[in-house]
């Protein structure tokens, strides 16, 4: 590993440690979902009903760790912050691993 690569990995782990900012800042300012990404309950509050097609499809997939919360339950902000970091590390490892595998299988270019 080159020294630049070591620095970049270090940077990524520091980023993972700082991810709870992305959880805490929106709560401080009372901001919720991104525009157009509301859950069905929030959408019902916004427009007064849940569109029929949307209702049918909304729950089509149950993700193991919804909202980057590995406990899957409502927890205190401090706990969610820790789960958020763990999700970040899981995500970092998974995406890094998957692209690495794709490359290993795919790349023949040894330049």
């Amino acid at each position, binding site marked *: 590993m080159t020294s630049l690569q070591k620095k970049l990995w270090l940077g990524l782990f520091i980023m993972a440690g700082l991810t709870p900012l992305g959880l805490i800042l929106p709560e401080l300012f009372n901001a*919720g979902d991104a525009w157009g*990404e509301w*859950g069905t309950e929030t959408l019902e509050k916004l427009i007064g009903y849940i569109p029929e097609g*949307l209702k049918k*499809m909304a729950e089509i997939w149950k993700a193991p760790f919804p909202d980057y919360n590995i406990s899957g339950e409502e927890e205190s902000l401090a706990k969610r912050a820790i789960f958020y970091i763990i999700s970040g590390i899981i*995500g*970092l490892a*998974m995406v890094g691993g998957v692209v690495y595998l794709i490359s290993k299988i795919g790349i023949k270019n040894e330049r």
Partner: protein
Amino acid sequence: MHIPDGYLSPQTYLPLYGASIAFWAMALKKFRKELPAKNIPYLAMAAAFSFLIMMFNIPAPGGTTGHAGGAGIIAIILGPWTAVIAISVVLIIQAIIFGDGGITALGANCFNMAVVNVFISYWIFRLLSKSFSGNSRLSLAAFVAGYLGLTGAALITALEFGIQPLIAQSPDGRPLYAPYPLSIAIPAMAIEHLFLFSIIEGIITALLVRYFYKHEAQLIYALKSKGG
């Protein structure tokens, strides 16, 4: 910008799956030829970076949030086809494992962020970095590339949301999927990106291009003469 399940009609998400699959096929072919084996660690880091940067939700006035995505910087450093792979893998993991973005909407999300954003950023950077020279010009080119790439992705996403009420309605005339028309979706998405999220994306893109230019300039794909 991660469209959840239920917001897009099948008439929208199926063609967009088709478009993304076409780009994936092309990207797999291209990146096998183009990515040097020594750059594989950078690809893994790029995907990890994109995943993490998307976790930094930024509150916007009006009670919504958004985030940068890193598609532009990855396209500039590793090339657009490699970026298509990196961002798509991020979006697939986010959807399957973390429920961020829908499964039915995955094709659309990949098209918006892993294709539209990537190619806008890449070509704008190529164009601007060629016409200018010097360090600060390079940063400016990177800023504009990041800024317009994310904004373009936001606009195409808003377009997909906004056409839903036109495409599918229940017998009583209510929208079946995303409920807001173009006249609301486009300004809502455009304003928060033009004035906040895309600015942050632009700054991140510029800072990282500067960093790589200083430390490993020969790595930067978009500055090589052969084009892509």
